[in-house]
């Protein structure tokens, strides 16, 4: 049985398809159609809902895409939808939640179809900030919500306006706390006919299930896998959710490395990782949207083995290792040896990715992390270039690179590493070294860019490294989302 709190009402689900999304459950099973389907692929934000879960500081609320989360993954959570923000009888702006009132008074809705999703992203902002945060925080919060009508200005205004009204009393946390307190822990199991969903709570349990159901789909954030259900119309016999497995949710700081559980969401591990590698901040803030980063995980991205998954090139350059666990025990594999071919890895059928170990920063280490995409926010990389080296007396040592979008797998360029090793960090060196990229890479032309552009821009990005060193000139465009 799956139990959760929907707005102020406890819900129990015994029967449902294992791959049923929260969105489809809301719209087709529970007649709550305020949450809209814009794309069913996590790219538009129209279906944004807010999920509450017990956290380090009481109940924590995060906005996610309801089209990507499975209904089984609601087990033990608080789901807030647009219907939950104000009374159904509310008619005047004053009777609405401040978030809703601000959208009305700032003329933030035109066709209105994206509006419930924006309202929920703004509500998450409201729940997490007592006062209006700086504009770049607001933009980062709403980067996963698309509006085709307004041009966004009135929506940004509404984010400020909502803080100008008397603050709405929080009826959500008390309700959630009461629900969590009263809840009897039950296994998260749900089925429809022979098809089953389950969410094990321990690694041992997970490995057992994996043997029992070799064809089961493993889902963490679902930010990619859910598209197999909504777009490819796959109907898996079993779905195993990894998000409740305690061991996969751990984050440990060792003396020489950070160990990040494979099912820890981006937003949870980023503050820690970025303390060490602040240069990766832009790349992570452009990895999907806030909604995606609230759900997505390192284990999911690496296991998926996409050539354009953003974390892999960084992990390559940082020489991270993966812990793979199976019935026979655990093994550590360097990220550089994990990918075999297009969407093929060394992970065995009965194994799972348990954690990622990222070495801590060396004092002399420099890191450059550049993402190129057609749109700055929430776009898949055309190319991603990561370069790490130690700098002593102006020379580069221990050069490690990571590239996305340049080959069938995320790859380091050994030729580039070698060409830069021991060389002085100058524009000339970088320009010359860029020539060797053509030796290692033969990128494809596709919907995002041509082969020529990919090569040329990687060579040019090496120059950006050099210009950044000079610190004389403006090196980056001033985009509001950067």
């Amino acid at each position, binding site marked *: 049985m799956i139990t959760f709190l929907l707005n102020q009402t406890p819900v129990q689900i015994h029967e449902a398809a294992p791959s049923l999304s929260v969105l489809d459950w809301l719209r087709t099973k529970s*007649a709550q*159609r*305020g949450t809209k389907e*814009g*794309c*069913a*692929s996590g*790219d538009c934000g*129209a279906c944004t809902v807010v999920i509450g879960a017990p956290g380090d500081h009481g109940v924590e609320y995060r906005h996610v895409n309801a089209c990507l989360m499975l209904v089984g993954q609601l087990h033990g959570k608080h789901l807030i939808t*647009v219907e939950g923000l*104000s009374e*159904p009888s*509310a008619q*005047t702006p004053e009777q*609405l939640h401040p*978030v*809703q009132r601000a959208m009305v*008074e700032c*003329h*933030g*809705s*035109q*066709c*209105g*179809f*994206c*509006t*419930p999703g924006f309202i929920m992203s703004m509500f998450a902002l409201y729940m997490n900030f007592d006062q209006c945060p700086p504009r770049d925080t607001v*933009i980062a919060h*709403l*980067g996963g919500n*698309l509006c*085709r*009508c*307004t*041009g*966004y*200005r*009135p929506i940004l205004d509404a984010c400020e306006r909502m803080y100008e009204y008397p603050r709405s009393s929080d009826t959500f946390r008390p309700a959630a706390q009461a629900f969590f307190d009263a809840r009897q822990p039950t296994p998260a199991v749900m089925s429809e006919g022979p098809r089953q969903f389950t969410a094990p709570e321990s690694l041992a349990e997970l490995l057992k299930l994996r043997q029992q159901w070799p064809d089961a789909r493993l889902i963490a954030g679902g930010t990619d896998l859910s598209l197999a259900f909504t*777009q490819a119309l796959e109907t898996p016999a079993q779905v195993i959710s990894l998000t409740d497995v305690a061991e996969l949710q751990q984050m440990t700081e060792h003396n020489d490395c950070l160990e990040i559980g494979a099912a820890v969401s981006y937003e949870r591990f980023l503050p820690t990782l970025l303390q060490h590698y602040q240069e990766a901040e832009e790349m992570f803030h452009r990895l999907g949207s806030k909604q995606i980063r609230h759900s997505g995980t390192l284990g999911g991205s690496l296991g998926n083995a996409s050539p354009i998954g953003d974390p892999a090139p960084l992990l390559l350059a940082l020489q991270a290792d993966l812990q793979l666990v199976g019935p026979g025990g655990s093994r550590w594999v360097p990220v550089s040896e994990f990918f075999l071919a297009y969407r093929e890895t060394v992970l065995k059928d009965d194994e799972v990715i348990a954690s990622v170990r990222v070495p801590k920063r060396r004092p002399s280490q420099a890191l450059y992390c550049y993402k*190129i995409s057609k*749109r*700055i*926010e929430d776009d*898949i990389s055309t190319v991603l270039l990561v370069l790490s080296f130690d700098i002593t007396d102006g020379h580069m040592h221990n050069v490690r690179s990571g590239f996305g979008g340049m080959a069938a797998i995320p790859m380091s360029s050994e030729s580039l590493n070698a060409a830069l090793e021991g060389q002085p960090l100058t524009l000339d060196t970088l320009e010359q070294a860029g020539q060797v990229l053509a030796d290692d890479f033969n990128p494809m032309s596709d*919907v*995002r860019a*041509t082969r020529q*552009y990919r090569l040329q*821009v990687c060579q040019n*990005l090496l*120059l*950006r490294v050099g210009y950044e060193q000079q610190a004389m*000139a403006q090196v*980056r*465009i001033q*985009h*509001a*989302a*950067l």
Partner: protein
Amino acid sequence: MRHFETRLPKSSHNAVGRPSPHDSAVTQVTGRAHYIDDQPLPADALHAYPVLAPVAQGTLKQIDSAEVEQWPGVLAVLTTEDIPGRRDIGPVFPGDVLLVEDRIHYHGQPVAVVVAESYELARRAARAVSVEVDAEAAQLTVQKAVADQRWVRPPFTLTRGDIDQGFAGSDHELAGEISLGGQEHFYLEGQVALVSPTDDGGLFVKCSTQHPSEVQHLVADVLNKPMQAVTVEMRRMGGGFGGKETQAAQWAILAAMAADVTGRTVKLRLARADDFRLTGKRHPFWNRYRVGFDDEGRIQAADIEVNGNCGYSPDLSDAIVDRAMFHADNTYFYEQVRITGHRAKTDTVSHTAFRGFGGPQGMIVAEAIMDDVARHLGKDPADIRRVNLYSPGRDQTPYHQTVDQFVVGDMMQKLMDEADYTSRRQAIAEFNRTSPIIRKGLSITPVKFGISFTVQHLNQAGALVHVYTDGSIHLNHGGTEMGQGLNVKVQQIVAQAFGVPLASVGVSATRTDKVPNTSATAASSGSDLNGMAALNAANTIKQRLIEFLVERDGADPDSFVFEQGQVQYDQGSLTFKELAKAAYEARISLSSTGYYATPKIHFNRAEGKGRPFFYFAHGVSMTEVEVDTLTGEQAVTRVDILHDVGHSLNPAIDIGQIEGGFVQGMGWLTTEDLRWDDQGALASFGPATYKIPAIGDMPAEFNVRLYDSENPETTVFRSKAVGEPPFMLANSVWCAIRDAVSSLSDYRFSPPLTAPATPESILAAVTATRAWSLQKQEHDDAE
């Protein structure tokens, strides 16, 4: 009454001119606003889904659905053989078949429709139907179509003066070309229709469409029913932008067919990826131009060819390419001019209406020309623009309509003063001289957009107004609400007429049985046409009320003032509610239809002469950008806009249209990149690969103001249309990017810049500019 004067009284109680919120604002923010997919379904409702052709070009051999039809829950698989009536649903010209008959015209073209008990099942079954074809090579490029003279409609040319004489007498000559991408509408609510059979053999259709009357007409024709047996209702769309003008019909018709066959309610909703694949886009264009000009940059001769990539069928392409031609002058007078329009046929989905309707693709040619001329002469592009503006005596458009409102010069001057054009241009040039990577660009571009459907008979509208005995008012009009705020504007107009609070006027869903034979809500005409029709209806009732009191009380008919829910006249006063009740008891009809037809317009297409537009809407925008010359990335850092909406009916709604239009135009010219693979399948078929502007793309500084002027023509309260014109304000983004890149040549080379100006396109322009500069350097060194 076909047309009448309206002016707003000087009063602080006017409903018109207020920034009233959208009529559905509260229901939208609470999630209570129903869109079609939100409607509760009857327990036995069914779902329909199209079966798609697997190739872009070829012959359909066989559809094998025998196995799928055995699936539990699958009720039927319908093909063209099951169509009782008309099989071609071309809205103006034939060419759009409902389901493939023999020839397959584009990748994904519907060949059949599956009817099943659930949405998921219908989709899965549709994929499982086996479609056997003889594939042929697809022809996908507009250049090839132009070379082959492969048209969906014949070419058409506008001429004024003698082009050869113009070139012979010109001091300088330049030529260029420009490739413009298409644009996916990306309305957040995809195509959807819900059809229920009625007990008398008719059909009740709910459809997300900008054109309920056309859906009604086509459903009736395809199913061999009279139009009166089909009612179409449309409360609101989750965005339209032209994408639901003609291309909402097919899905409604397929659902109607399924409903008619099964006798049950049927819904058809396209999943987003299929919505991308199966519906037409903004036309990609490939345009060429040759201009002659004098030392001041005055255009002496312009020879322009616009080539619209129409896809496989005419759809609305005749009028769309016409509008591109009508706007290839923009605000500029060409002394001698020839504009040729080609409607190129390619093997893709049929491209269709999209905000601007070809106007943007034509207008940007004029802006490219101004910049090219400026670079050639080493002058400021703003000066070249100003010297070419239409002015008294230089006022004939290429289609022989006389321009008679000359506000663009004043608007440009005001904006340049307010936004410090001159000093910023200097500062930017200074910055660029020493900046190795980032280059800034600045551009000011004007817009002049012709208002009216260029097909004359479409310029008409109807409305229906009822006053109830409690003084509340029911309003219905033929326009459709897609987010643009049409309903609240028409509400304001009716509230203004009766002098009642806005809340007294309720606006209801557009329905073909309330207001018949409507035009599409398109061409920015929604409030011009329907507002006037509603005003006509309200005035008819108001006149009856006045006459009633004149007769009853001997009142002076000129003494009446309707304001704040009160009616005051020389013999007394009463509330509007009291008046409604009294009139009812005196057996006065409190219901009226209203009608409006735009005056003055005419166009002789054979001669290319006339007055296709009632008036022009204007705007000016100034954009500053930053370009990364290493990567081609760009950011729009500041935008200033001054826009002419005449006397605004609702400034909040109008500013929303201007800002939204600008950002949508910016998307077309920057991030929105449609790609087809070499098999003719759309490769960018969803928001993962097709990127509309996100919130951070909004200009960091974004100043939008309304230009204070009234419409010289007698439109409703002297307002102007606002839906499409602001889209083209974004031309300044493209020009500013080109300006930034041009700085690499010290502003002497006008780089080719393919739209959308993606990072790759911009980097190509950077490379070309550097190559030009290098060549020039070598040439100069050699001399």
